[in-house]
């Protein structure tokens, strides 16, 4: 730690506060320098912290075509999943899982994903609950500039499963250029630059937000019970931003793997090639954001679960296609849907490879990350809540084994999310509600 810098920073703060107005500034813990090869902190030998993210694709896979014949490490990827072969050793595949409705109405393309993302299935489409990325982020995500980053690849900002509390989803960023500006624009401090000078204007903004936070007590004292949680979420958002600015005021620890990528250009839309390009850009930006210590949590959706993805000139978008494309009499499946589902797996491979392409000493960014990939239906054609395909990639810094096919038999799909939580050190004894409540992780996956 640079004592000199610490003093410098406090001096500036004192300058700011010369009037005597003691605006409280929560100082983030300065991260110590890394060791020579950039894999761990030099002072403690502690490895780089784990990262976690969700990767959502709509409309599942083609039933009976993706489940491997055997469980364990020696499984073969079926042809439908051939696209995943290059990352097979760094991922896990889970089959045989379901989401329980417990008598509630199946909000198609919603309930199943909600169950996996939050552990609960709501009575109607409007209710929500804290999602897994928020739970994990509260545990491993502190001390970064962004609590988490949410993105979607088809232009629909509401395509998100991430939430804190019950008052609505975290909207997804639709524009790679806007995300680039958020991460690498104003306020970004290259951790590898020798020069560091806190920006007094940021300090002022930070102090203003601290003042907003101080209002919490005043408002909370008379707020109605129904609104208390909601208002608390607002203040929690303010604190997140406060923390972001505090981060910008701090000298960042050097991160040799950090590179500022090019901004590029963008074309947002629901055509397959547009979605593919947008996804590629987001994958790169999220990877660099993590390599540069800006966040440890991300949520990416390929788009809405009612997927609008389509080929030019095709009358139906992907979602309508799952319900309306006839099953080919000889092939026994919907060929158009199968092709699109395989593109999804190609995109997932590309995402994982992008993380794996960032070398951090001996390992890669993927190695210290867990990616949780989930979908809305087992068989989208029938809005099936059974036989969900679920994937994970990365080992979270050796906390999870990889290369496995886990074949469950009708277990709640929440077991995967719970396993990830256990691997990343959360100490909850169970997760989920009603029949989706689970308390047993897949121990064969835990390292």
């Amino acid at each position: 730690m640079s004592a000199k810098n610490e003093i410098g920073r406090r001096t500036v703060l004192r300058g700011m506060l010369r009037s005597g107005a003691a605006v409280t500034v929560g100082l983030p813990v300065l991260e110590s320098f890394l060791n020579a090869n950039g894999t761990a902190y030099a002072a403690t030998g502690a490895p780089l912290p784990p990262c976690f993210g969700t990767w959502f694709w709509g409309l599942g896979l083609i039933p009976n075509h993706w489940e491997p014949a055997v469980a364990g490490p020696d499984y073969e990827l079926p042809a439908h999943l051939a696209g995943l072969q290059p990352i097979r050793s760094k991922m896990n595949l889970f089959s045989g899982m379901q989401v329980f409705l417990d008598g509630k109405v199946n909000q198609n393309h919603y309930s199943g994903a909600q169950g996996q993302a939050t552990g609960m299935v709501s009575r109607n489409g409007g209710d929500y609950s804290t999602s897994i990325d928020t739970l994990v982020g509260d545990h491993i995500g502190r001390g970064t500039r962004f609590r988490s980053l949410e993105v979607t690849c088809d232009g629909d900002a509401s395509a998100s499963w991430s939430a804190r509390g019950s008052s609505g989803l975290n909207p997804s960023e639709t524009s790679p250029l806007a995300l680039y500006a958020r991460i690498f624009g104003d306020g970004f401090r290259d951790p590898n630059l020798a020069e560091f000078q806190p920006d007094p204007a940021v300090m002022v903004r930070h102090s203003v937000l601290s003042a907003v936070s101080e209002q919490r007590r005043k408002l909370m004292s008379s707020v109605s019970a129904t609104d208390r949680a909601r208002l608390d979420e607002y203040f929690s958002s303010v604190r997140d931003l406060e923390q972001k600015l505090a981060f910008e005021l701090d000298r960042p620890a050097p991160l040799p793997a950090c590179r500022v990528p090019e901004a590029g250009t963008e074309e947002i839309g629901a055509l397959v090639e547009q979605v593919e390009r947008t996804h590629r850009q987001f994958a790169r930006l999220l990877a660099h954001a993590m390599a540069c210590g800006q966040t440890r949590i991300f949520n990416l959706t390929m788009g809405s679960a009612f997927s609008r993805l389509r080929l030019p000139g095709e009358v139906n978008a992907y979602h309508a296609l799952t319900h309306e494309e006839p099953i080919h009499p000889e092939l026994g499946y919907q060929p158009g849907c199968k092709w699109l589902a395989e593109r999804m797996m190609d995109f997932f491979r590309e995402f994982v490879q992008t993380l794996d392409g960032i070398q951090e000493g001996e390992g890669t960014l993927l190695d210290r990350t867990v990616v949780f990939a989930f979908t809305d239906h087992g068989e989208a054609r029938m809005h099936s809540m059974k036989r969900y395909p679920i994937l994970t990639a990365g080992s979270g810094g050796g906390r999870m084994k990889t290369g496995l096919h886990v074949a469950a038999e009708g277990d709640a799909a929440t077991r995967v999310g719970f396993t990830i939580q256990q691997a990343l050190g959360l100490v909850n004894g169970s997760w989920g509600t009603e029949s989706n409540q689970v308390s047993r992780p897949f121990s064969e996956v835990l390292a």
Partner: protein
Amino acid sequence: MGGAWHQDVTPEPAGFATGSPDRSDDMSGSIPLRRIVRLPALLAALVVGVSAAPGAAEELTFVRLTPAQYQRAVHDVFGPSVRVDEGGAVLGVRDRGLLAVGARRSTLTAAEVERYEALAQQIAAQVTEPARRATLIGCRPAADDVPDDACTARFVERAGRFLFRRPVTGGETDLYVAVARAAAETLGDYYAGLRAALAWMLVAPEFLFRVERSEPDPADPGRLRLDAWSRASRLSFFLWDSAPDHLLLDAAESGDLLTPEGLERQVERLVASPRAEQGVRAFFSDMLELDRFATLSIDSSLFPRFTKNVEDDAREQTLRTVADHLLDRNRDYRDLFVTRDTFLTPPLAAIYGVPLPRSQELGGAVPWVPYRFPEGSSHVGLLGQVSFLALHSHPGRSSPTLRGQAVQQIFLCRTVPPPPPDVDFSLLQDTYNPDYRTTRDRLAEHRRNPACASCHNLTDPIGLTLEVFDAAGGYRTMENGAPIDASGELNGRTYAGPAGLAEALRDDPRATSCFIERAFSYGAARPPTDREQAWLADVEAELTDGGLKWRALMRRIARSPDFYTVVPGA
């Protein structure tokens, strides 16, 4: 345009800087010593100040501003030339068919607060830039590079009254002044200090949310009602989709707004104002789910005439038709289902396949031309417009189910449940079967299957009538070489095509009660209670005989004390 508020009540260029009563003339006064104390002490004073209000029953509830209301509030206070960037995601939640009701359940997520803070910095920078200072700040500091607490306090009190829609308390002013002072000293710039204070006000919950404060109702001490300031906000957002102007705030401050006569005066003024049009537009944008245009994707390779211009124009066509119908012509809401009067642009005329006189020939500078669809045209009323037809279609194909569901949910307030899980649709999917060329043929199969029929009977008879319109809203008579049968049935009434459906909807009492309930829910940002349902039934009985006119409905709702009753936990 600068918003009718400026025209109504304030001289240009705008804002509170010239429009509000002047209560703080002492520009040269010395800085009160009490302001230079530690912030926590100020906060303590503030907490005491706030909780000093009598009545333990008081409680606060919050309704999030929509992006449009945010923008309008900023423009009302600081003038329309202040840029408020759009874009960036602020998600609305639709509850009971309305984003306005969802706004009572919405909070602001981290990404949204981040965006609003950036916007606040941008707006505060514009307000304090040299060209605007003289008009917007309302006083000059003693020097540009040091704090001037008196000037800051004056600005905070005047701006705060509009931004928070109530007077800023002394304790709050002290806080803002303290932050402005600290920032001015740090950055050596008075205006940078002011910027910090204003940015704070713009991210404060009192600005980003409509804070509704309740008090015991003197007429019925067991009930809670909104206090005068909250009543002013509810009224203004209901009728104008914007924050109260200074006359409304004055009426709240004097207590006039809490009297029946005072309330009536303000309701009449607001309903008669040109700004009522933005209220109508906001309500119908919400009810008709026009926000969904943001994610509409009609395939332009299949429908080459359906360009981005058409999307924008289709939305505007509907809003123009509604505003013209309800305000300019003072017509019955129910006739919106059957009206043939509308407005078109050249791109829209191409979709509708009608010749359009050029606007120049009509002497208009804008491309909008009034147009009346001829008798016999299927383009009747709101359901015959591109906005409705395209929003409830697939990218390349019309959908009777989506359209029928939309009619049930939007106009009849009826929920159509989603299909159950694990249902095999394969019977319906064979688009290549020569026996099933039209959608009607295939959906008939749907309605024979009991698992599907209960819901599809709600949607398909309505939607199949609209099959004479393709996914882009254009008229057609054939599908896959077979003639389209547009006959249908609603409430036991049969008809041959869209005009008959439109008449059946106009005459359906559920359409009337649905509309009145939506209007109330929109204004109150919550659904009516049972007691209020009964009251709304009375309103319905009163209004439907004389014609369901927009202004009459607004008056009837807004003048009723029930509209300002607070229902704990609702």
